[in-house]
């Protein structure tokens, strides 16, 4: 089974260590490589992108490395693909220029 890594025990997202297809089940591992649980992903998730490990209501903190990395801009359900379409930065908003720049 493919894996996703949870960088800190407080996190509510895990990062995919391989590209995943919608509906696929994935092992969530700790930084010590222990299997913590399994989760089914709702959509395709590319390598290095994130999966929700819990429901996160709109406005709720998205937590990775044990720290907030932004806020949910819509309701996120466990197994959902988590990226710029449903998360906003609290620090620097994403701009069109950033999306175009290499």
């Amino acid at each position, binding site marked *: 089974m493919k894996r996703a890594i949870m960088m800190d025990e407080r996190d509510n997202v895990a990062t995919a260590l391989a590209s995943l297809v919608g509906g696929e089940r994935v092992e969530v591992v700790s930084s010590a490589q222990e299997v913590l649980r399994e989760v089914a992903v709702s959509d395709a998730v590319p390598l*290095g992108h994130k999966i929700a490990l819990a429901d996160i209501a709109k406005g709720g903190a998205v937590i990775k490395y044990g720290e907030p990395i*932004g806020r949910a801009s819509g309701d996120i359900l466990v197994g959902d693909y988590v990226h710029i379409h449903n998360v906003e930065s609290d620090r620097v908003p994403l701009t069109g220029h950033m999306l175009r720049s290499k």
Partner: protein
Amino acid sequence: MEFQGFERPKDLVGVRNIVLVVAIADCTEPAARMIAEGIEGAVPVTHHHGCIAMDVVPTLVGVARNPNVAATLLLAMGCEGIQAEPLRDEISKAGKPVDVINIQRIGSTRRAISRGREMVSGMGDQAKKQQRKPFDVSRLVVGVKCGGSDTTSGLAANPAIGVMSDMLVDAGAAVVMIEPIEAIGAEKPLAARAVNEGVRQQILKWIGDEEKRWTVPGAEMDFMCRGNIEGGLTTLEEKSLGAIHKGGHRAVKGVLKNKEDYLETVPPGGGFYLQDGTHSEPAAMSYMAAAGVHIIVFATGRGGSFGHAICPMVKVTGNPDTWSRMGEDMDINASTIMEGKESIESVGKRIFDEVVAVASGKVTLGEQLGFYNFSLWRRDPRLEALLKIK
């Protein structure tokens, strides 16, 4: 735990035995190269900011004082704004041999090169007499840096280097992290690690000043780019948290000042420090060298093909493809984390062991190639004045 190092004056220890030939400005660079050519241990360096950029002087002085350097020859044209004698006097405070050749005074370039080669050979012969001796690991000062980052950097290489950083600090050694630009967005967790309120304020200023420099109206720079987003990074907070992971989790003892006229070195006694500086790799490494760093541990996703003139570099990649393509340039394979074969902790311990081995003389893969980089960042005092950064 001990490593085998070179004893230096002023109770310092080096891990390399370099004779540095410094071209004070670019004018004397070719002659400096010819002086050092073929002499074992001799390393010629220069910078390309001309001879009136006085703000590079503290870095030049710092690198010559770095304990990896056994002796220094300064090569002057004679008419520089940056004068050789005051530079020599500052460097000599480290208690190591330092001398000057002035081409205009000696009368010709050929004569300067010939005299320079005699002097550098003599300095090298003296340096070679030094034997490595055992020192406690607590005497080491290690810099951490990342570059060519990709999605694996924040998951594998940086967290593993963070384990190494904590192990070094716990062993009484010092760890230095530069690159304030990448801490923008990670202010809160970093400031929470300050040993006291004064340091907490220093950390916030360290990050805030850098943000000012890169958000000048009309010349703003993006802190995130499309490549970051395509790699899976959603916000600046996520990007920055992944980057600062290489600095581990121990208390921040201070922010080393780096000003036009002053560059603070790492105080004795170990611990984790931040350093004011830049993110551009070779120049950032020169700043770290000037602060007294012995070895630089470098995390990369996409690979890196450089070394530093003063500090051996231990390169770590977390990307399995980079490891298979560029393995002969990478000292440590952290891609085992991505493949589920090894824990972050275990890779961190391997990096720690590698750093101790390199401190004792193990030749890094970059050093085997025999080339190195040296460049200086110019923090333009005019911009600092306009932005009212003190």
